[in-house]
């Protein structure tokens, strides 16, 4: 079908490349040891890249209807102003498929049910929801000359507990992802997390002030994810990136090294080529605080007359290079301050043009290097530049929970935390 489409398009002077994604997801939702629902999805989606009279047209489709697609290519050609000198994938990439065994819904259900025993001794847990999602994607590219394939899978567990005690009602949740199904490891993680759920049954805040803080690995991952667009040449060239005038300059503390490592098989987002068939590779984007590598797809690379960096689909396995300190070491060094455990609704409280951050947070007041009490109703009020310039030390507790970014905890000086208390 794809070959026929490629051939048919050629008769209309249209060169076509088809990027195919086969996706399978399995979701099992349980609540209070009952299965609420299972949701499965099997789809095949196509990204069509067409070159027609020096313009590149992209279509995303659930089905191949050659006549319809050719007509849409011509229609979109008429609208586009921009010529594009990019080419198709031409490398015969050596692809290594990551093979994973799918687990049966029955096995997953049994495993999830088994986890509920961990909550039995915690009276404050009023309602418990445990969910599992398997997401497996196989991708391939076919044009006139090549036919390449790659495959990746992710197992995600998420937990949400409703906590009730003395009239206080709170929610606690967390999720964890693996490349290989590992219920034993997740159970250990859940046991650790559940022990801290009761901490949230407080209404504590702090006085608004500047504090020494630890920003958790989860927060750092979320921030990297949110700001990763800023490293892309397309946004830099259009001056829509907050780093548009900062290439080859010092943007962060020299302790900060930001790396994209898409081929690292230990991380979750392993991918060997992007949707344009460009081989991905390890790269240092920020070195000792200096922004040294811009990220390219074929179009922006062609405009800057450089090679694509294999980032046509965004970033994969982007992280800050871990330091040597464990999380406990960071807590000892913090001694007195605030541990920011999580931040919410980044899209609502972050200015992507200036890097200013004002987001809802939760965490702990830290005294003598130990978590003293849980804090909520606090706001992290700072900027990306302030956070990454005031860093004192970077932890080694790398957290992987999505395929784009990983995070490490960081000890940071002098950051404003807004609270509703009059005194510390």
């Amino acid at each position, binding site marked *: 079908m794809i070959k026929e489409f490629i051939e048919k398009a050629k008769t209309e002077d249209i060169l076509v490349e088809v990027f195919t994604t086969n996706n399978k997801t399995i979701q099992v939702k349980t*609540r209070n040891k*009952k*299965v*609420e*629902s*299972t*949701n*499965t*999805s*099997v*789809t*095949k*989606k196509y990204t069509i890249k067409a070159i027609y009279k020096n313009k590149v*047209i992209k*279509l*995303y*489709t*659930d*089905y191949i209807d050659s006549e*319809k697609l050719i007509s*849409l290519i011509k*229609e*979109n050609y*008429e*609208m*586009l*102003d*921009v010529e594009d000198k990019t080419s198709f994938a031409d490398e015969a990439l050596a692809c290594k498929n990551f093979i994973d065994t799918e687990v049966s819904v029955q096995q997953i259900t049994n495993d999830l049910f088994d986890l509920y025993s961990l909550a039995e001794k915690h009276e404050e847990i009023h*309602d418990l929801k445990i969910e599992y999602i398997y997401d497996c994607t196989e991708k391939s590219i076919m044009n006139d000359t090549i036919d390449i394939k790659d495959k990746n899978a992710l197992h995600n567990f998420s937990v949400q507990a*409703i906590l009730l005690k003395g009239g206080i*009602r*709170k*929610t606690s949740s967390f999720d964890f992802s693996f490349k290989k199904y590992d219920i034993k490891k997740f159970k250990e993680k859940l046991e650790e997390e559940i022990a801290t759920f009761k901490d949230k049954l407080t209404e504590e805040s702090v006085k*608004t002030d500047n504090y020494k803080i630890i920003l958790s690995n989860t927060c750092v991952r979320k921030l990297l994810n949110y700001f990763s667009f800023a490293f892309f040449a397309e946004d830099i060239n*259009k*001056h*829509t990136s907050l780093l548009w*005038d900062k290439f080859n300059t010092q943007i962060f503390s020299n302790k900060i090294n930001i790396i994209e490592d898409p081929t690292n098989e230990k991380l979750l987002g392993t991918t060997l080529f992007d949707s344009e068939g460009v081989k991905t590779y390890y790269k240092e984007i920020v070195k000792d605080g200096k922004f040294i590598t811009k990220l390219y797809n074929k179009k922006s690379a062609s405009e800057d007359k450089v090679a694509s960096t294999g980032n046509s689909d965004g970033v994969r396995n982007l992280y800050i290079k871990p330091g040597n300190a464990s999380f406990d070491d960071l807590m000892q060094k913090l001694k007195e301050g605030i541990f920011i455990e999580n931040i*919410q*609704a980044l*899209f*609502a*409280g972050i*200015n*992507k*043009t*200036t890097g*200013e*951050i*004002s*987001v*809802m947070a939760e965490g702990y007041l830290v005294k003598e290097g130990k978590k003293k009490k849980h804090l*909520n*109703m606090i*706001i992290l*009020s*700072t900027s990306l530049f302030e956070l990454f310039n005031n860093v004192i030390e970077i932890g080694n507790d790398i957290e992987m929970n999505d395929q784009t970014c990983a995070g490490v905890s960081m000890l940071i000086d002098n950051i*404003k935390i*807004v609270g*509703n208390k009059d005194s510390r």
Partner: protein
Amino acid sequence: MNKKKLEQFLNLSLDTGTDFSEIYYENTINKTIMLSDCKIDKVVTCLDRGIGIRLAKGEYMVYTSTNDLSDENIINTINELKQNYHGSPIYKDVVLKDKNIYNKKIDYHHGYTYQDKKNILKKIDKIAREHSSKVEQVQATFVEEEKDVVLCNHLGEYSTDKRYLLRLVIHIYVNDKGKKESTYEAYGNSSGYNLLDTFDLEKEVKRLVDIAVSKLNSVDCPNGIMPVVIGPAFGAVILHEACGHSMEATSVSKNASVLCGMLNKRLGSDKLTVIDDGTIDGAWGSTFIDDEGELTRKNVLIESGILKSYLVDKINEKPMHHKITGSGRRQNYLYPPTSRMNNTYIAKGTDKIEDMIKSIDYGIYAKTMNGGSVDPNSGEFNFGCREAFLIEKGKITKMVKGATLMGNTLDVLKNIEMISDDLKLGTGYCGSDSGNVPVTCGQPTIKVNNILVGGNK
């Protein structure tokens, strides 16, 4: 997808004793036309076509979706799905009968050719750049969507919908000697290019440029608990986040909402009436039927401060003992539907914005909002301001940046002290269990006492 095939699939799905079976089919074409750097830089078309099959017995639901529409695949998928249930058929020999059939004719393009659309985007760029030399980049995007939907179920109900969406998003970036700022606005409807008749494009673009330029000189926002005046239209995201999500059956039926057990109880003052209405002609969040085949309707959620209704879908109708509200929605065939909002707004009141400002010694005027999030269980919410000003001694003084508002649903509803008469609707997307759906948030200007404001001052 003809009716005979759908009947065959439905009957096959029912023979292991399920008491609910539903097939959802969609065929969507979506086109994005984007201007950047004074040129039409991207034109992308997406074609989505697939089905979602939902079976349930009691509270146990299974769902599967696929875009391989061959009979063989659909039959295999159903055979696999129904293995989750065991028993004699409760429903059989289903014959489909028309229930809610879309038959409206809409002139989506209103005579606008592709060249006209290109010209409008280029006009936006030109107006912005001519209005201020500080404008560094303009991005303007039309997103067109046409979606055909077919729904049928075990009761033999067959319904169809044709859904149109048009969205125009304008981003303005300004730069003054290296100091940068930006702003954006989104406009949308469910009836097509007559969207451009509903506002003065030139005036709007100039307004956005003025906002972005003003932000260059904005001061850090103060912080603490203070009164806040929230502007109309998308300012109602506070209502959407703080209140609307807590009324959805998804959380209420699981006793996971701060509003559980609150029906017919007072949540706010007599002045407060909240409505969710999926029938507003041409509104961004309107549809003819919901994604369970039911007609959308006007649901009064809070009347004169008293909670009158939740938003309830078919699966939650029985366990909640609450009538359905035509609120089952989903992003596309990949998601089973859940109860969601459509066009949610606070009915207009009689207060005046001038009196609200005058009544405040020190507070914030949050003129436009960015969006936010809520935990429906605890009621804790937060949202960010796109355009906010300081109120000092009864007057609006300086523009402030980085303002975030935080609070709790029940507190904020009680603390709505004044409601003005300038009701407007704003458009956005709402993300939840069943994906991202277009929603309208609307309100007149309101004054809320005691919100925690976070800024960097």
